[in-house]
């Protein structure tokens, strides 16, 4: 195997930039591992670290600032055998912080090489997430107000399995890179370097100082013992292999004549927790059992078990256009909150409209036919009122009949729930 460096595009870093040495050393690591260009993708961030992919004859993916790890994740999941190397500066660490933390938590087999030179080189030496508070940088006094972070300790506490920091001038840098690439999981190598174009114009930093500073950093045991676990991609594929194939929804065939071959609009006004949406679905299924078209439009709050829950069901022998209901045929008033939400619905009702009014629910005065089934004296829980109202409707042969309802229940429910809902049919009376 030969060098993977791109002969036609030699590195173009500023004279004295440590990125140059890291480029050569990355190639040495590839060479040592015997990797071919087709087996590697270099995913690069923005800034000077974003130039790396162009210097190599490997697959290359250069994207937006801070997002390199997101593309790397998609690529590695799609191509599990590919060696995915991400180069990112200290700038990318800041703007892409959420992605770094997630990569640490996930442990997908990516290698993140952080080209940490303590400032934004390309845009004029502004401060980054790793710039010392004492440094003179292109952001005026602002860096004096913030503390730099140690990405290695952050990564270790976020769950990274492999965390190392080293100097870009280390003699064994190739070995450090190779170890990180070979690690089976997410690995971070925090490589400290010098930006002669910007940072060292106003700050003293030499390979020697880097070496001394690294020696003063709190040590991190690597690989991080408490973070050792299965590699994400393999783990994902193992768990996915155990998931059951999902079949398309069962068909509901037409098996009954409808009560009337005409469109029926039913509005159920209730509360979250009353299984309003489920009742609406059962009503649709009952309609499908006569070969009708059905729509179910729902309205509820994002909270669970609190607030109103409204469903509007249309059963029609014709194709259904508008899915809202301005002129209902049946209103089930099952909770005050539901009724209050749709007061306007009661404005212009005539006596062909049926209202099922549950105990304790007040409705605006109107001309509709009102039935007040006493669910309380029948000892029916409020959570069953929506289904009970459907049963009342079916027992009256309005909109649906009992066989339609039973067919819908058998389609929707299994075992205990089916038994208890069929029992409910026996318990509910229309008065």
């Amino acid at each position, binding site marked *: 195997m030969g060098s993977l460096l791109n002969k036609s595009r030699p590195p173009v870093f500023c004279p004295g930039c440590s990125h140059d040495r890291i480029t050569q050393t990355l190639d040495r690591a590839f060479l040592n591992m015997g990797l071919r260009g087709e087996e590697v993708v270099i995913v690069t961030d923005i800034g000077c670290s974003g130039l790396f992919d162009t210097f190599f004859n490997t697959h*290359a993916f250069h994207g937006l600032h801070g997002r390199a790890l997101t593309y790397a994740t998609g*690529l590695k999941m*799609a191509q599990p055998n*590919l060696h995915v190397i991400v180069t990112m500066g200290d700038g990318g660490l800041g703007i892409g912080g959420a992605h770094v933390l997630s990569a640490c938590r996930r442990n997908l087999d990516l290698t993140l090489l952080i080209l940490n030179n303590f400032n934004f080189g390309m845009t004029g030496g502004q401060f980054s997430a790793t710039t010392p508070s004492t440094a003179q940088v292109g952001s005026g006094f602002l860096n004096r107000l913030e503390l730099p972070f140690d990405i290695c300790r952050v990564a270790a506490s976020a769950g990274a399995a492999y965390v190392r920091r080293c100097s870009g001038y280390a003699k064994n840098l190739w070995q450090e890179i190779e170890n990180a690439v070979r690690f089976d999981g997410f690995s971070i190598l925090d490589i400290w370097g010098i930006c002669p174009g910007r940072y060292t114009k106003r700050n003293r930093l030499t390979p020697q100082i880097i070496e001394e500073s690294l020696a003063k950093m709190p040590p991190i045991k690597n690989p991080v013992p408490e973070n050792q676990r299965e590699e994400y991609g393999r783990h994902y594929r193992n768990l996915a292999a155990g998931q059951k194939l999902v079949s398309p929804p069962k068909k509901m065939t037409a098996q009954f004549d409808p009560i009337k071959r005409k469109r029926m609009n039913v509005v159920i006004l209730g509360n979250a927790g009353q299984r309003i949406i489920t009742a609406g679905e059962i009503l649709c299924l009952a309609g499908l059992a006569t070969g009708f078209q059905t729509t179910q439009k729902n309205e509820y709050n994002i909270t669970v078990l609190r607030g109103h829950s409204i469903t509007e069901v249309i059963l029609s022998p014709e194709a259904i256009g508008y899915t809202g209901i*301005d002129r209902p045929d049946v209103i089930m008033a099952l909770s005050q909150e539901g009724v209050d939400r749709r007061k306007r619905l009661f404005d212009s009702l005539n006596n062909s409209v049926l209202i099922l009014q549950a105990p304790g629910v007040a409705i605006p005065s109107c001309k509709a036919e009102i039935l007040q089934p006493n669910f309380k004296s029948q000892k029916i829980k409020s959570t069953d009122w929506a289904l009970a109202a459907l049963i009342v409707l079916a027992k009256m042969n309005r909109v649906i009949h009992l066989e339609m309802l039973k067919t819908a229940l058998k389609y929707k429910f299994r075992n205990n729930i089916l038994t208890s809902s069929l029992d409910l049919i026996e318990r509910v009376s229309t008065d």
Partner: protein
Amino acid sequence: MEGNEAMAWGAVVSGCRFFAGYPITPATTIFNTMLKLLPPLNGICLQGEDEIASIGYCLGASMGGLKAMTATSGPGISLYSEHISFAIGSEIPVVIVDVQRLGPSTGSATRGADGDIQFLRWGNSGGLPVIVLAPVDVSDCFLMTIKAFNLAEEFRCPVFIASNKEIAMTRENIDMDAFDIPNIVERTPPPAGKPFIPFEVPLESKVPYFLPIGGDVIVRQTSSTHGADGYITTDTDEISRVQDRLNTKLTSKVKSFSFHESYLEKDSDTLLLAYGITARAARDVYHECKNSGSPISLLILKTLWPVPEELIKEKAEYVQRVVVVEMNLGQYVREIERILPDKIIDFLGQMDGRLISPNQIAKALAHG
């Protein structure tokens, strides 16, 4: 099933094997359904740490050779923006579902709207065109998703599906066996025997061949302004050629994907124009008008961007007046005014979370 579920099924039929999303009402049930469907098919479904990551995963996976989809709502589309621009400029196929909810901003999570129609078109840096399809009902959610994948693969571009809470979370019966499922389009690999140049365009087309990153041939992808070789370029002639190609590869072909329904009545001087959920109320009005003996014509657009200008001009040719109805305060009507300067253009819009009813449309037709 609901529209969101139908989209997930459509995606699977299209060969989609990668989905990533971040939970957001009213799009979450697409993620939920993909999470059930994909893993048993050796597909991948991920929950991103945010929307930027979700679509970033999709771009990586798409370049890795998988058909990819993500789904969100307005607040998520806002965060997708940088990656939408990337997918446009670097020709990465991806399907992006926007289940629109009432905006602006956080807005109302459980109320519908069509408020993102211009945003989808222009919410990218550089302003190059995108494809936006608009389903009308649950069956459309299934079929338009397949068409969206086909277009994304054919043109190597992001394709949006502009859904709406009122389609996405409304349940409706569908007959999956009765669907006329389009042929599934795959990416075109280069002919054998020549070195692969990542963005080189075949003579007869404006779309580069595709090879995946991770295959036997080295592939370069970059978000920088690039030439055919996939390297950053400053050659203004080459830049100009690429921008022109990115622009016209879609606009010159919109005739081949101008999806629509039209009901033209000879005796009508008015064309009602609608899309998305509002088209259903418009269809009711069309039937009522026809039954009452004063027919109107109706055009339902299912391709919104690039604007199917020829189609709209053709359908509006014999009317004097066009009434545009949409669930916002006037977005697509701007395009109609632009294309049909010599017609009377009336507008009915509403942005309060309620559907526009057939009654409202009938009134607008009568009083315009």
